[in-house]
């Protein structure tokens, strides 16, 4: 392995960016491929698939065999709002294999009793996200209903290309939210990525059912996400 490749791979991993180490099993030469790098042909297709599924493996192209070792950052969910839906979403996310954390500055909601074993921050999103920034491998679900709490992290999620941005609220609430985001200078195509009303349309009614709908929508957005630097897939895959 080229020492530079090793350094590059580790640097990308530290920065929570997806990367593939491509090794030619014939001559042992390797190269580092980032998500969105344009690789033509059959190899490019195999690379896209590997990024999407996160699965490492060998591919044969003509007489050559390559090994693709995929390093995908662990997908995580950041929930804004320590509400009833979040209490149900936490164990569902754990079962589905996603890391999850909950942020809510309202200390009456964000109590350890209500969120036993959950990574909980009883602080403003502005403060928490400073030390733990959002990224393309993060889903953001804003469920407080309160613009003072929800708006900043939603804008931040759109700016950083979170693979999913969902916001709770009726169509009317969401229309007002869109106006506020526009006033904040967020472009319309970014705003259109917000999944609202939140969750796949399964007719969910209880908080637990809404949590299931949100989880399904997050999985769908993650698996069908567009690769590359833009991180724009959400609008196509999210059912409003």
């Amino acid at each position: 392995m080229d020492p530079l490749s090793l350094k590059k791979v580790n640097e990308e991993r530290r920065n929570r960016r997806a990367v593939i180490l491509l090794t030619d099993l014939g001559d042992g030469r390797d190269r580092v491929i980032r998500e969105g790098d344009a690789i033509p042909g059959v190899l490019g297709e195999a690379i896209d698939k590997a990024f999407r599924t996160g699965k490492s493996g060998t591919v044969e192209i003509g007489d050559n065999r390559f090994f693709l070792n995929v390093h995908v950052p662990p997908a995580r969910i950041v929930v804004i709002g320590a509400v009833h839906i979040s209490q149900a979403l936490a164990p569902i996310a754990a079962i589905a294999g996603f890391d999850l954390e909950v942020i809510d500055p309202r200390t009456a909601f964000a109590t350890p009793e209500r969120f036993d074993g959950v990574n909980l921050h009883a602080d403003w999103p502005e403060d928490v996200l400073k030390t733990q920034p959002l990224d393309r491998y993060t889903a953001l679900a804003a469920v407080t209903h309160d613009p003072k709490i929800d708006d900043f992290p939603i804008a931040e999620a759109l700016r950083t290309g979170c693979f999913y941005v969902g916001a709770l609220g009726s169509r009317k609430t969401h229309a007002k939210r869109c106006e506020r985001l526009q006033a904040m200078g967020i472009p319309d195509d970014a705003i259109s990525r917000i999944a609202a009303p939140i969750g796949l349309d399964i007719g969910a009614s209880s908080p637990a059912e809404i949590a299931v709908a949100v989880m399904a929508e997050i999985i769908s957005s993650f698996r069908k996400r567009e690769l590359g630097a833009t991180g724009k897939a959400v609008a196509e895959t999210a059912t409003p």
Partner: protein
Amino acid sequence: MNGVFSAGQFDELATAESWMKAGREVAIATVVETWGSAPRPVGSHLVIDEDGNFEGSVSGGCVEGAVVTEAMDVLRSGEPKMLEFGVADETAWRVGLSCGGRIRVWVERVG
């Protein structure tokens, strides 16, 4: 989830880099293919230095000894090697693989 690296304490590629920076000779062994029941998924690493120190795993612990020995060769020659271990091999698992697992391990020197 598949292919997800753990940010925890056992990070073989970070170990490899820190060993390399400390001036040690480093070989990296990687599981590139598995058949049947294999204890470690494709992409798993074992890193080895010239004194035979190692971190990580490519199996449940039964073929690591053989991989370390081969890695010494690879460190000397600089030529990468593909190793294959199966249930029929002397050096393979003696217990715990009822489905007849087989793995292919790529061993290469860093640099």
